C-alpha cells in the first residue's frame, strides 16, 4: 500500500512539474508578428527596430509582408491575400509609413488597411521625451480616436451647383465600441480619468449620441473618473496646461486634430507612437510620420517613432519587461545627446543611433 502511495505521489509530482514546464515554455514562446516595412524610410527603420529587438532578446519572430494594393475579382481594391492571411493568423502587426500614389485609382493604403481589419480605435500616447526639449514639459496623455466613421465617412454630395453637403455619421454601435475600449484601456494601463471631447452644444444629436454612449460605458466602469469637455475648451486648455488631461476619447475629426496637436506638444510625428485596435483581437502598431522620400536610403532616418510603437506593441502583448528595457534604452540615448539623428538635433546616422540603443539595451541586462 505504501509503495502504491509512493508511485501515485511520484506521478502527481511529475504531472505538476511538466505542467510548470509547459507554462514556462509558453511564456517564453516566440510569438510571430507581421511586419510591414512600408515605403521610403520604412525598410531602414524596420531593420533598425529588428536589430534592437534582437539585442533585447525579445521573443518576437518577424514575418515580413508587402501591402501594395491589388485589384481583386470584381475590380475592388484590396491588400494582397498573403498579407491578410498573415495578419489574421498573427493578430499583431507593426507597420512603417506607406505612401499613397496620387491618381493611382485606389483609396489610401491606410484607409484600405482600416477597412480590411475593422481598425476602430486609434490610440496615441503622448509622453514628453526627457532629452528632446519642447516648450511643453510633463505631458502624459493618451488620445483615443474613433477611426471608422464620423466626419470621415466619405459621403459627400453636390446638391446644386455651388452647394456641397458632407455627411458626418455617428452610430450607436461604433460609439459604444470606442467608449468601452477607452475605459478598458484606462483600467488596463492604470489611468485615472477619461474625458469625452465633443461639440454637443452645436451638433446636438450626433455628438449627443456619442456622449450618451460614453456615459453608459462610464456607469459600467465606476473605478475610472469620467468627465466631458467641449472641443474648444480642450484646445484652449491643452496649449496652456496639458498636464490636466489623462485619457481623451472622441469621434474621428476631433481625434485627428487633437492627436496631432498632442504630437506637436511632445515634438512632432517623428517621435510619436501610435496603435490601431481592430475587431477580433487584431492590433496594428505604426509610425505616423510620412515616407520622407528625400532622405530614403541615406541612413538619415529617425527610427524612434517606429521603435516606440513597437514598445507599445510589446505592452499590448503583455511583455512589459522587454518593453521597459527597450524604452529606457531609447530614452537614455536621447537624453545623453551624444548620438542623435538629424531631426533630433544631432548629426549621426540612423545605424549609429541604432547601435547605440542596442549597446544600451545589452548594458541594461
Amino acid at each position: 500500500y505504501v509503495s502504491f502511495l509512493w508511485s501515485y505521489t511520484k506521478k502527481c509530482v511529475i504531472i505538476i512539474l511538466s505542467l510548470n514546464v509547459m507554462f514556462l515554455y509558453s511564456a517564453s514562446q516566440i510569438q510571430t508578428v507581421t511586419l510591414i516595412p512600408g515605403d521610403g524610410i520604412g525598410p531602414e527603420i524596420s531593420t533598425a527596430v529588428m536589430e534592437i529587438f534582437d539585442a533585447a532578446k525579445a521573443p518576437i519572430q518577424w514575418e515580413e509582408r508587402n501591402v501594395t494594393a491589388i485589384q481583386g475579382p470584381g475590380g475592388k481594391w484590396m491588400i494582397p491575400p498573403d498579407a491578410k492571411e498573415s495578419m489574421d493568423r498573427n493578430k499583431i502587426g507593426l507597420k512603417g509609413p506607406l505612401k499613397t500614389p496620387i491618381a493611382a485609382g485606389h483609396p489610401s493604403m491606410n484607409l484600405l488597411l482600416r477597412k480590411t481589419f475593422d481598425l476602430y480605435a486609434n490610440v496615441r500616447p503622448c509622453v514628453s521625451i526627457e532629452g528632446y526639449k519642447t516648450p511643453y514639459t510633463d505631458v502624459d496623455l493618451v488620445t483615443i480616436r474613433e477611426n471608422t466613421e464620423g466626419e470621415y465617412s466619405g459621403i459627400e454630395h453636390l446638391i446644386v451647383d455651388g452647394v456641397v453637403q458632407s455627411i458626418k455619421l455617428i452610430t450607436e454601435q461604433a460609439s459604444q465600441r470606442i467608449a468601452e475600449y477607452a475605459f478598458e484601456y484606462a483600467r488596463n494601463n492604470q489611468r485615472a480619468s477619461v474625458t469625452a471631447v465633443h461639440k454637443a452644444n452645436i451638433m446636438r444629436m450626433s455628438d449627443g449620441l456619442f456622449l450618451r454612449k460614453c456615459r453608459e460605458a462610464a456607469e459600467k466602469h465606476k473605478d475610472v473618473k469620467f468627465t466631458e469637455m467641449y472641443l474648444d475648451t480642450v484646445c484652449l486648455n491643452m496649449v496652456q496646461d496639458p498636464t490636466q488631461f489623462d485619457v481623451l476619447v472622441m469621434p474621428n475629426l476631433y481625434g485627428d486634430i487633437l492627436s496631432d496637436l498632442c504630437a506637436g506638444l511632445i515634438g512632432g510625428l517623428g517621435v510619436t507612437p501610435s496603435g490601431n485596435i481592430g475587431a477580433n483581437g487584431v492590433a496594428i502598431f505604426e509610425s505616423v510620420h510620412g515616407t520622407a522620400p528625400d532622405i530614403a536610403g541615406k541612413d538619415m532616418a529617425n527610427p524612434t517613432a517606429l521603435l516606440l510603437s513597437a514598445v507599445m506593441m510589446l505592452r499590448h502583448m503583455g511583455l512589459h519587461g522587454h518593453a521597459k528595457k527597450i524604452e529606457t534604452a531609447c530614452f537614455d540615448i536621447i537624453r545623453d545627446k551624444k548620438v542623435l539623428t538629424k531631426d533630433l538635433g544631432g548629426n549621426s546616422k540612423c545605424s549609429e543611433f541604432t547601435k547605440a540603443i542596442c549597446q544600451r539595451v545589452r548594458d541594461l541586462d
Partner: protein
Amino acid sequence: MAAHSAVLSMSKIINPFWGGRLGNTVKCCTLSSMQLITYEMLMLQPPPAKYGGRHTVTLIPGDGIGPELLNHVKEVFRFSCVPVDFEVVHVNSALESEDDINNAITAIRRNGVALKGNIETNHTMAPSVKSRNNLLRTSLDLYANVMHCQSLPGVQTRHKNIDIMIIRENTEGEYSSLEHESVSGVVECLKIITRNNSLRIADYAFRLAREKGRSRVTAVHKANIMKLGDGLFLQCCREVASGYPDITFDSMIVDNTTMQLVSKPQQFDVMVMPNLYGNVVSNVCAGLVGGPGLVPGANYGRDYAVFETATRNTGKSIAGRNIANPTAMLLAGCMMLDHLRLYDYASMIRNAILTTMNETRLHTADIGGQGTTSEVVQSIMRNIQSKGPLTTDL
C-alpha cells in the same frame, strides 16, 4: 414723369440726413421712376443709430461672467464720457421659446451694432432647442468672425512674437444644425459648404489682409479627406487669391496646422477657414497668447456687427467671484468703438488697458496673478484719467 420728379424732390429732402449714403441716386435720370426707387432700395444701408451725436448699441449680458464684465465695460465707458448709450436686452437661455433671442435680433437690426456676452447652451435639452448664439449669427448673417491674436508684452507665455489674424466663416459649415436620425441608432449631421459663402469669406480675408498691410494668407482645410466640401472652399480661396497678386496665398491641412501652431506659431500671418476648424484654431491661438481672458473677437456681417470675447466662454465656474479677466471684453468694446468711428476714445481706452497689463501685480488668476477684476478696472480708469482729456469723477 410726375413720379420721377416727386422722387427727385424726395431725394433732395432726405439726402442731407443720410449724409451721402444714398450714393448717386439723384443723378441717375436715365432710369425710369420705378427702377430708380428699387435701385435706391438696393443701395441703402441701414441708417446708423446715432441721435444727437450719441450712438445706441445693443447690449446682451448673456450668462456666467458676461453680465459682470459688461457692467465693467459700461462703467469704463461712462467714466471716459464715451458717447454711447447701451440698450440692454436680456436673453434667458433656460427657456425653450425663441422670443427672447428674437427680441435681441430685432434690437440689433435696429441699432446695427451689439456687444454681447456668451449665452449658455444646455446640450441636454432637446435638439429642437438650438444654440442661441448660433441663431443670432445666422439670422443676422454675420458671416465673418475676426480674431487678432497678438502676444502682449506684459503676459508670460511659452511662445513669443505671435501676431496672427484668424478669419473664420461664421454661418455655415458644420454649424448648420441640420441633423436627423434616419435609422434608430444612426445619426447623420450635415456639413454644408456653398460657393457663395466661401467666396465671400475669402474675399473678406484678402481685403482685410490688404487693408492691414499683411503679406500672407493661409487657408486651413481638410480637403484630402473631404474632397468635395473643403475642396470647394479651397478652390474659392484660390480664385479670390488670383485677384490679389500682392498677397501670398498657401494652404495647410488642419491637423498639420495645429501641430505647427504649438511648435512654431510665428510662421502664420492671416488664416482663413471654415467654421469648425476656425473654432479649433482660434482656441489654440487664444491659448498660445495667454488665455481666453485676453483676446477680443468680432462678428461682421454686411449690415451688422456684433462684438464679444474671441473664445466665447460662459465662465460659469468663475462667475460672481470677481476674478474674471475683463481685458477681452474691454478690448471688444474698443473694437466696437473703432467700428463706430470713435477712434480717439478707442485708442485712449486701449492704451490704458495695455499699460495696466504691463503691471504683473494686477494680473488676474487666469494669467497667473492674484488681482481681482475690480482692481484691474480701477487701474484702467486711473490710467485713462491721467492721460485722457475729460473724465467724470472716479
